[in-house]
């Protein structure tokens, strides 16, 4: 006997993601899923953003790594509320991991929640966490051909942050060419070129985050 199913394989994950979204909405929190290769600068971008938004927004972080709590400690030392998830080998975060982490955070003290995904350009893209924004970070030493090699991640991003612009003179990365090829796979994403080291571009990025927070809160 044939049974029609027509259901998304990840529907169980998507349902928990929906619960997360509702919980975050009830606490007026904007969640940002940060995805990149290992070492592209996710933690550094969070630190710079915290500095830029000092006194304007309270930031919490869920740190996803295969193992260790190095990143959460780095953030805690800087005074940021951070909670570490170790996936124990898993290559991405899923909605239930985020759900457990949310239960251990003081949500009333957070305006913006950064969810730092496991460093990986493939696996995180398929898993909805209940976030409002998907942000991809690409650092210049990784090369300007990545959007075509990992199209799903780039095509679904709400923003792309090109990090390590301070290294542009030393690496083979055509910034203008990259911007146009990226726009080829993703028209709607906001684009930022930043340096976590020199601070270039951080103000523009932080302003965009505040704009998004305002629109999430006004329900737009």
């Amino acid at each position, binding site marked *: 006997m*044939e*049974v*029609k199913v*027509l259901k998304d394989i990840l529907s169980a994950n998507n349902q928990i993601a929906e619960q997360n979204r509702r919980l975050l909405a009830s606490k007026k929190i904007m969640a940002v899923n940060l995805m990149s290769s290992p070492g592209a600068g996710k933690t550094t971008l969070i630190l710079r953003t915290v500095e830029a938004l000092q006194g304007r927004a309270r930031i919490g972080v869920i740190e996803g790594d295969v193992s260790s709590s190095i990143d959460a400690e780095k953030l805690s030392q800087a005074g940021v509320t951070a909670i570490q998830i170790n996936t124990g080998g*898993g290559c991405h975060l899923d909605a239930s991991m985020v759900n457990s982490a949310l239960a251990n955070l003081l949500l009333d003290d957070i305006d913006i929640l950064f969810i730092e995904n496991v460093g990986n350009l493939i696996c995180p893209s*398929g898993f909805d966490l209940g976030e409002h924004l998907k942000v991809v970070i690409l650092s210049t030493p990784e090369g300007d051909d990545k959007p075509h090699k*990992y199209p799903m991640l780039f095509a679904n991003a709400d923003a792309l942050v090109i990090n390590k612009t301070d290294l542009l003179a030393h690496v083979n990365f055509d910034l203008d060419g990259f911007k146009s090829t990226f726009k*080829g796979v993703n028209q709607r994403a906001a684009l930022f070129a930043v340096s976590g080291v020199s601070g270039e571009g951080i103000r523009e990025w932080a302003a965009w985050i505040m704009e998004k927070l305002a629109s999430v809160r006004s329900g737009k």
Partner: protein
Amino acid sequence: MHEMAVTMSLLDLVLKEATRAGASRVVAVNVVLGEMTGIVDHCVQTNFELMSRNTPAEGAVLSFRNVPKQARCRKCAHVFQPTGICWTCPKCQSAELEIIAGNELYVESIEVE
């Protein structure tokens, strides 16, 4: 590597649907898999064989309908399959594209007894 998580969700979904249909055994599973998901079907196949042991889905034959990525040009509406590292419309050379197929990841049907 996330094929493991995907296969686990697939198996859960298949077993739930089989129970709902009052079936005792799953004979076949038909999956639709878009190219953009990056999921490798033979990994899912191997994982499924291992994970379904001692469940009503043990021995079920998995069939994959692979959906290639497809884009629509926002300028001239031409529909085509982007290839290579430069995704531009073969008709008008515009790079303003919308991906209209290739993100699929669902179970179309199952065959049960």
